[in-house]
């Protein structure tokens, strides 16, 4: 058995989600069709919508199903900017630790759509600098996007403060909560946010479906056009199978959140203790290093001084442990993480960071495997550091 410690990349599907997906795979029906098969499919989608809404403190009408987190982020950032901007309101504020789905969308707005983008600094733990935020915020602000919790270092942001102040100046406020939902309490209605992104596969549902929670009063311009599904902002045939699996996963993840978060946080801290025992100069990055409650329960970002992260990940892989350097990268080349850089971690230090992320299937046996293989892995990686 491999030790899978990359749950922040994607986490195994929960049995309830597998059952829901499997059941729906055998049925036929387009939810937009008026006949019996269509109505049956529609019912599954609307049941799913209501369950997701109920578990996250939202109204069913506020749930816009999308193809995943990246799509929801793009719809939020671009769609809200297009709907909200006018001659005097073109500022877009994003934190320096956003996922590329938000950060690059904002950059694109700046490059092609006349937006003025401000990237907001974070402190050494990765938490938004609220003073800088207040200084940047004003009547010209169209959109604010600050993630709920960071995928690389786990830091949880002061989303309620961000939302309150953004709304006070009439800006649309969005949060990418892909890593947060199902792992820390998230209540959309109480958050003060206008828009919130979540995705199924980070909490035990299938890949390929997510949602943007959007207040009914928040105007969005469509990113993709077509049949007018999902409040006319997200056209495309509704994914019945995905929605069923998504809702089942959200249901379990939120219902079991409190106990599971405590269990994972204890394992996370134990893992760091074990790493420190094997590598005494290992350091912890992000909020988890200072205040365990300010970080995601399952994310552990560890600096192993002198050991290149890509070499550590490769050697762990060979030893049966799945971990990651920062976030997974499609190009396959590890560049120093923009998140770690934003925390003030130097380029060399950032290259020696490995992320372990725990989830609902993690057990102590996974930690024991890390303990067993890490001393040799780090020794070899350090020896290889001289080359490249």
């Amino acid at each position: 058995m491999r030790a899978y410690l990359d749950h922040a990349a994607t986490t195994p599907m929960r049995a309830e989600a597998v059952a829901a997906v499997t059941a729906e795979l055998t049925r036929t029906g387009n939810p937009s069709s008026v006949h019996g098969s269509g109505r049956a499919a529609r019912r599954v989608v609307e049941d799913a919508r209501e369950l997701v809404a109920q578990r996250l403190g939202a109204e069913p009408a506020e749930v816009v199903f999308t193809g995943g987190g990246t799509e929801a982020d793009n719809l939020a950032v671009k769609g809200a900017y297009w709907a909200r901007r006018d001659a005097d309101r073109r500022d877009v504020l994003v934190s320096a630790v956003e996922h590329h789905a938000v950060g690059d969308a904002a950059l694109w707005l700046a490059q092609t759509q006349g937006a003025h983008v401000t990237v907001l600094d974070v402190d050494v733990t990765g938490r938004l600098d609220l003073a800088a935020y207040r200084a940047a915020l004003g009547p010209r602000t169209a959109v604010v996007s600050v993630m709920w919790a960071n995928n690389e270092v786990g830091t949880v942001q002061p989303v309620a403060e961000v939302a309150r102040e953004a709304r006070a100046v009439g800006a649309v406020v969005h949060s990418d909560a892909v890593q947060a939902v199902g792992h820390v309490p998230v209540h959309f209605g109480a958050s003060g946010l206008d828009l919130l992104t979540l995705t199924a596969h980070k909490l035990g549902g299938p890949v390929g479906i997510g949602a943007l929670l959007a207040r009914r009063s928040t105007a969005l311009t469509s990113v993709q056009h077509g049949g007018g599904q999902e409040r006319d902002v997200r056209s495309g045939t509704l994914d019945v199978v995905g929605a069923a699996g998504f809702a089942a996963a959200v249901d379990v993840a939120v219902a079991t959140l409190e106990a599971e978060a405590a269990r994972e946080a204890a394992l996370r801290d134990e893992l760091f203790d074990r790493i420190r025992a094997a590598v005494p100069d290992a350091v912890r990055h992000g909020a988890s290093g200072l205040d365990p409650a300010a970080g995601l329960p399952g994310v552990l970002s560890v600096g192993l001084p002198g050991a290149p992260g890509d070499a550590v990940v490769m050697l762990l892989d060979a030893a049966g442990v799945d971990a990651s350097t920062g976030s997974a990268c499609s190009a396959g080349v590890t560049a120093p993480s923009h998140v770690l850089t934003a925390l003030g971690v130097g380029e060399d230090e950032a290259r020696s960071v490995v992320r372990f992320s725990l989830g609902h299937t993690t057990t102590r046996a996974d930690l024991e495997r890390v303990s067993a293989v890490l001393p040799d892995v780090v020794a070899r990686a350090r020896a290889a550091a001289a080359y490249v």
Partner: protein
Amino acid sequence: MKVLAAMSGGVDSAVAAARAVDAGHDVTGVHLALSKNPQSFRSGARGCCSREDAHDARRAADRLGIPFYVWDLSDRFAADVVDDFVAEYAAGRTPNPCLRCNEKIKFSAVLERGLALGFDAVCTGHYARLEGGQLHRAVDEAKDQSYVLGVLTAHQVAHSWFPLGTSTKTEVRAEAAARGLCVAAKPDSHDICFIPDGDTAGFLDARLGTRPGAVVDLDGTHVGEHEGTHHFTVGQRRGLRLGVPAADGKPRFVLDVTPVTGTVTVGPREALDVTRLSGVRPTWTGPVPEGPWRGLVQVRAHGTPVPATVELRSAPGEPDELVVETDEPLSGVAPGQAVVCYAGTRVVGSATIAVTRPALVP
């Protein structure tokens, strides 16, 4: 044995990795990212560094069921290969970047990193053979790549493996197809991977600018102008744009490039003939031969080997010098090129050509 298979995304390295797997070794594939911005390099065609190549390498590794990683060597490649290439041209020499990449990247940075990580050997798709631990030419003479491996040291040879040396290219392609590797029909790479459009002069202009100078005849007669000595390499005939025809009406060739004065010297083909040359920074793939010895030398990747007497001269306080006297003249030998020495099919060593003496000079 734990083998690190360097996989470019081409057919040769994929088949080499497959053979390593078949031989029962514990094989890991690694693709070298040689550019920070892979899309800036070639697309569609065949190179070392495009996204398509990384994808093809990954698919081959998937097919073989081996782990696969991309290693970012772009900084090392830029410094050790690209910058060196530009500097060599700026100095009036003619470098071979593939050889340099083998010397500094594939069999140095990658090999040493692999050894430190616990691997025993690096396996590549080069056409060359190892026999009794010694480096030899491939059996497919047309594909033989032993020349670009001539810079390897004994240590590097001892940790290298070239599974394709006993096969022909045709056999390798057929084997790739039989194994279901999608790269079976992929075209060979030819040009310099970091100059995808093949416009070496334009690439150098962008880095060195234009530096006008004179083209002169062997007797010093001014016969034309040029926009930079880096546009010329010894032995070149085309692109001289000379206003004054040669007295004998025969074509003229570049004989010498002198960046300091900005002078390009041209003359008849016979003046390119060289029988004696001196190399610096000698390297040896095995034991260092003592005294003068008889062998074969080759001065370009697909050049014809010629019989020669070779001698390593070492003097205290002086850099080692490899002196080569060929039995028959070599044509168009430029400083900066590598001279690779063979004993029969065995690669003995190499040196970087520093000085040549024309056959006409007594």
